């Protein structure tokens, strides 16, 4: 189903024929005005063709030369990019290796430092106290403060309001 605009265009360009042409021309309210419009459209087409139809390309050979150069450059680029891709891949692999090695060194260092900072003999007593539980029913107002001097390897626990010692500790 064509719109009026499409039929009009086809009519102007002589693309309507048979019953379609008859029907369209019969549907025109003013055939003379339509014919005048058609003539104007033809004049417009002729004007465009005459005035802007033949716009030459100056320096044709230079155009082709420049294009050849550009295509040669564009064609060379993928191989360079391929080379670049390999070096990028190496860089990524190097980065991965460096990252992994750094992580391993860090973990080893961290384990060493932690191991060094937590000697078993230092924390034995403290661990016993901390692991013990203060029963909140028996000692509801109990407060415990801890003072630690790392240089001297001394820890002091200050307890107040303790109604009874924790059973674990008392047993020791």
């Amino acid at each position, binding site marked *: 189903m064509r719109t009026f*605009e499409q039929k009009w265009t086809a009519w102007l360009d002589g693309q309507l024929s048979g019953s379609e042409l008859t029907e369209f021309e019969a549907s025109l309210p003013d055939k003379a005005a339509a014919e005048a419009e058609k003539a104007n459209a033809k004049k417009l087409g002729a004007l465009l063709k005459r005035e802007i139809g033949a716009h030459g390309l100056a320096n044709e050979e230079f155009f082709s030369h420049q294009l050849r150069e550009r295509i040669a450059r564009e064609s060379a680029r993928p191989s360079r990019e391929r080379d670049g891709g390999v070096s990028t891949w190496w860089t990524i692999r190097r980065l991965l290796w460096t990252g992994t090695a750094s992580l391993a060194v860090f973990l080893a260092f961290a384990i060493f430092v932690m191991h060094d900072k937590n000697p078993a003999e230092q924390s034995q007593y403290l661990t016993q106290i901390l692991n013990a539980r203060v029963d909140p029913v028996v000692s509801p107002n109990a407060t415990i403060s801890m003072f630690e001097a790392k240089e001297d390897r001394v820890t002091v626990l200050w307890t107040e309001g303790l109604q009874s010692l924790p059973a674990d500790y008392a047993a020791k």
Partner: protein
Amino acid sequence: MQTEATPAQADVSELDLVKRCQAGDTEAFDELVTRYRTRIFGMIYNMVHSEQDAWDLAQDSFVKAWKSIKRFRGHSSFYTWIYRIVMNVTIDWLRKKQVKGECGEFDDAIQLKEIDPASKTVPKADALPYETMKRSEIRARIENAIAQLSPEHRAVILMKEIEEMQYHEIAETLRCSIGTVMSRLFYARKKLQNLLKDVYENI
């Protein structure tokens, strides 16, 4: 559609050239460029109204064609295929220019009026300066009128009136329906008739 092929060039079929291009033969592509460069440049120029921009866009179009020539399956003629690339490149460029709000068309038209007759074409020996000036003015009027059309309407009217392409060829080039081509032609012609009525009626 006409090409600028010489009889010697015509001996080598377009399809052979395309096949050679697909095998990486740049000389074959050069041959195709030689056949179509003027028409393609002219078409782009009529769309953008700037020698320099038309030159660059024509170069871009041919480079794009070279890069994608392996995808050309021969369902249409090479000319229709490359025209599609040209139109995509040019319409995209015009749209970007519109988005940026650049209004170079009018300046280009003035530049053309002042420089082009002497530098681009060789005036005929019997052409009077007055006639040359008058024609330049007419051309500037036409270019200004075309510049007022949307990129799609410009493409359709130029392909129909200048390239004398059929509706189906235009539709194939612009990847739209024949009905859309006809509708665009209707509006493009109406607008140009309004803008150029005094020009074509007084010649």
